[in-house]
Each structure stands twice: as structure tokens, then as C-alpha cells.
């Protein structure tokens, strides 16, 4: 499936590439298009595992944007087929992270071992993945314990309940969701703060102004003469400021690690 059925493959590709390039509007449109699918994946995680639905959605959105930063359209894989892996993984990692300490005890390891044995037995007998209730009955653990242990062990598929009202994924993926909308806004706000790559932020204000004006970065391009006049400088001085700024960025990007014995 695609969350962008109304777009052509080229349009979808352009949107993903623009999102990867740091275009925030593209990020918003991409998330907007796929939020129903993200919400559908989030609904596959059962209640009672110690992770709020809102948190799952936020992780899912972050997973989608990570996928956009990594996705290579040249490989020919449809975007959602690729991104859904990272969305699901982000949610699984969150569940594992928030429920992790229990997995480290000896008791938890023994519990997991019995769950795995029960799962294998169920698969042998029925040829299908057991539900959490079935695993709870088979192991004598309560339902919540089973869910937490599975999450902690990153055994995700059996955690993702296909049952109940979300059994029909095709329908669930297109249901709008108020929680999802909030998650979308929150994650994008966060990204706006920390992920937009703009090297000029490493420069002094005057250096930024010269570079942006000279090359028309978010502002009409000007000659060094015009820039100098606006700043009360000569064109040559403006050129020196630009050259210094480029050198500063270069040094920052090519800073070598100290050699052994020099620290």
C-alpha cells in the first residue's frame, strides 16, 4: 500500500527526497500522508505494556522521518514498504526501552524462556502465532507480564496483536486519529529545533549575512560590492569575510582526531 495513493511514484519520491533534504514542509506533508498507517501500526501494540499510545505514535513519526533520511528511491522499493520497518522498529525499541529493566533479572530470563517454549509449541500445534492471552495461559504468567517480557526481548510480532477492531489493517490504516495528529506536531516541532542542518549556524552573524546574501540563500543574491555597501565595508573586505567563513566551516568539518600520545 502507499499512504500517498493520490500521488504518482515520482511525486512520492520527490516528497521523500525533499524531506531528507531538510525541507520541513515536505516533512509535514510526508508525515501527514502516512500518519494513518503509523497509527495502524501503533494500534497493534496492546494496552497494558507500560507505554502510552501517544508515545508510540511519536516514535513512529520519528521512525518515518529516519526512513526518509535513509531511503534510496533508486533501489525501487516502495517507500512505505521500506519505512514501515523503521516505524515498527522505532515503536518496538521504545517499548523495549521503557520496559527493559525487567528483562535483566534472572527471573525475567526464565520467564522469557518459558514464553518462547510456549510460542514454539503453539506454532507446532496450530501453525499460527499465539496471542498474548494464549501465551499467558500456557505459561501461568499474567497477561501484563507476558507483554512486558516480549517487549523487552524485542520479540515484536507476537506483541503486535492483529485481533479486535484493528484486524482489518486496510481499514485501520485509513482511520484518522487525534492522538496521531498531536504526535505529528510534537515530533516535527522537535525536529525543527534539532535536525535541520544549517552550517551557517556555526558562523558569526556577519559571516552568515555575507554568505547568504552573496549566494542568495533564502534572500536575493547580491554582489560583494552591494553586500559591502550594505555593511559599510569594501567589496574586498566582504570577500575576506566570506573566505574566512568558508575556511571556518571547512576546518570544523575536517577536524582531525588527536594522534596517539598527544593527549
Amino acid at each position, binding site marked *: 500500500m502507499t499512504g500517498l495513493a493520490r500521488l504518482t511514484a*515520482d511525486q512520492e*519520491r*520527490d516528497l521523500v*527526497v*525533499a524531506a531528507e*533534504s*531538510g*525541507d520541513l514542509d515536505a516533512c509535514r506533508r510526508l508525515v501527514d500522508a502516512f500518519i494513518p498507517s503509523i497509527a495502524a501500526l501503533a494500534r497493534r501494540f496492546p494496552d497494558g505494556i507500560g507505554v502510552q499510545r501517544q508515545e508510540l505514535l511519536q516514535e513512529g513519526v520519528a*521512525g518515518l522521518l529516519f526512513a526518509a*533520511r*535513509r531511503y*534510496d*528511491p*533508486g*533501489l*525501487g*522499493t516502495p517507500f512505505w*514498504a*521500506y519505512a514501515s*520497518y*523503521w516505524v515498527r522498529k*522505532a515503536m*518496538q*525499541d*521504545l517499548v*523495549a*526501552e521503557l520496559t*527493559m529493566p525487567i*528483562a*535483566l533479572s534472572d527471573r525475567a*530470563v526464565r520467564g522469557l524462556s518459558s514464553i518462547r517454549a510456549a510460542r514454539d509449541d503453539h506454532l507446532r500445534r496450530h501453525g499460527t502465532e499465539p496471542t498474548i492471552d494464549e501465551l499467558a495461559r500456557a505459561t501461568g504468567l499474567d497477561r501484563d507480564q507476558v507483554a512486558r517480557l516480549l517487549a523487552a*526481548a*524485542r520479540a515484536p510480532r507476537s506483541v503486535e496483536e492483529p485481533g479486535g477492531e484493528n484486524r482489518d489493517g486496510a481499514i485501520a490504516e485509513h482511520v484518522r486519529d487525534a492522538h496521531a495528529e498531536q504526535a505529528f506536531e510534537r515530533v516535527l516541532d522537535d525536529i525543527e529545533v534539532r535536525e*535541520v*542542518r*544549517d*552550517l*551557517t549556524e556555526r558562523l558569526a552573524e556577519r559571516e552568515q549575512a555575507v*554568505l*547568504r546574501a*552573496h*549566494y*542568495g*540563500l*533564502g534572500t536575493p*543574491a547580491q554582489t560583494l560590492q552591494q553586500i559591502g555597501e550594505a555593511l559599510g565595508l569594501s567589496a574586498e573586505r566582504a*570577500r575576506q569575510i566570506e573566505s574566512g567563513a*568558508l575556511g571556518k*566551516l*571547512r576546518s570544523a*568539518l*575536517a*577536524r*582531525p*582526531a*588527536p*594522534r*596517539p*600520545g598527544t*593527549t
Partner: protein
Amino acid sequence: MSTDITALQHQALVYDSLDEYVVRAAAFLREGLEHGDGAVVAHTRAGIAVMREALGADADAVRFVDVGEAYTRPAHTLAAYHDVYADQLHRTPSLRAVADVQFGPDPGEWDLWTAYEAVFNESFAHLPARVLCTYDGSRLPERILDAVWRTHPTVLTEDGARTSDCYEEPDQVLRRIATPSAPLPQLRSIGFGRDAEEFRERLAREMNLAGTPAGRSLDMLLAATEVAANAVTHGGGIRDVRAGSAGGRFACEIVDAGPGFDDPLAGYLAPRAGSGSGLWIARQLTWSLEFFHGPRGFTAQILL
């Protein structure tokens, strides 16, 4: 006193369970910490939480890296690690790192990350670091696990460290999986101009016409400046520059007048004394950088 190491040791561990990962990775890091090494752990946030728990008070001395931020493109990942390692080596004379490589769901990109593992051997060859790459043997496909032995000189097994007898030189790995590049027909000639400044002005004009975000335009200007400088210094001058949008990305091709070079590792070596860093900069700022012999001459193709 730190462990006696003067160059990179790149090792791998294939683990069967999270418990095994935790036990062995924590032991590896603790041994270093006891000897004054710095320590780095790169994993998912969940994996980091497990390691924090297992390391207890020792976790305070460990630098944690969220792989969800770092593993986007191999060159970007190398740059992210380089920043972390350089920072750490300002504090300690040597370091140990445990890193869980993120291969992703698409078999088409597995070669890319296998190449990354191969390149890692050369990128950080000069650093006093023991890096243990960890692979989840219960989840990763056979093809990826096979490649572990080709890209790591040493693999930790239940019986201890084993020298790989099928390790391949990084340039061999890269050559085998390389896909041929060709000039992009969508681009148009914009020429180089009088000097680097005019070259940047021309390129910026094209990016503005293409609607490239301002922050990313600067990335391309810096990257292209480095590639062009390389062509002028080593390529006998610039014959042509072509630019425009292709496949949804802004692209720039710089054709030089020289015989070209054949080095698949170009731009992947982390900055070090006696080695230029221009192509390293260009790779970390862009989506891809390829070199090939085109009909008009040796060509550097940069995709933003």
C-alpha cells in the same frame, strides 16, 4: 594506564541473544575502562538502556550514541563516529567502542552497509581504538552474517578471538559491489567560470532556480568547492560543470582534464595528518559522490 594500542582494531561479535550481547559487550568495555580507555556504545535507545543498566555506575564514563541518528548514509555515519571518537580521544589516549550496525529491511541496501563495514577499517585505521561491531545473529539474514567475516579482521567467538581467513581488503569489497555510474542526461552545462567564487555563484543560481532549501544549498556549495579544488589541483583543470535536478535531487557534475584516479576509498578516510580532507567533507555534506570516466572526461558526480 591505558591499554597499549596505536592503531584501529576492528572486531565483530555475532550474538544469539540480548543477554549474550550485554554480557560480552559490557565485559569488553569494562576491561578498557579499567585500563583508562574511553568507552563508546552505539545502539538503539532500547539497546542503550540495556547497556546502561548492565554497566551500572560505569555507565557514567561511557559515551552513548543513538544509532537512530547516525545510520543514514555510510559517509554520514563515519563522520558521526569520527566526531565522537575525536572528542573522546581528546580526553583519553585510546578508546573502546561497541557499535550495533543498522542494516535495514531492504536487501538492496545491505551491500551499502557491508561496504561501510569494509571502509571502516581504512577510515579509522590511524586511531588508537578497539571497535567491536555487534550483529544480532537471531534476526539478521545469512547474507549479512557471512559478510561479517569478510569485513572484520577478527571475530569474537565462544572460543575467543578468531582471525578471519576470508577477510577482504576494503577496496576489493567496494569494487565488487560498485554499480557503474554515468553522466545524468537531465543536467545542463553551466561552466566553471573565472574562479571558485564565480563557480559557486553559478551553482547557487541553479539551486535557487531548482528550489533547493538554503541550508542544503550551502552544503552543496561547500562540497562542490572541495571537489572542484581537487580537480584543479590533481585533475589538470576543469573542463566543464553540469548541474540541475535529477531523480528528485539537485546534482552537479564536474568534469576535469586529467587522467582521473581509481580509488574507491576516496573521501572515506577520516581527516589525518598528511592526507587531504576535501573529499571527506564533500561526502559528509551530500547524498552521494561518485567518480567515473565519462565521454567528456573524468567526472565527479555529486548528488545532494
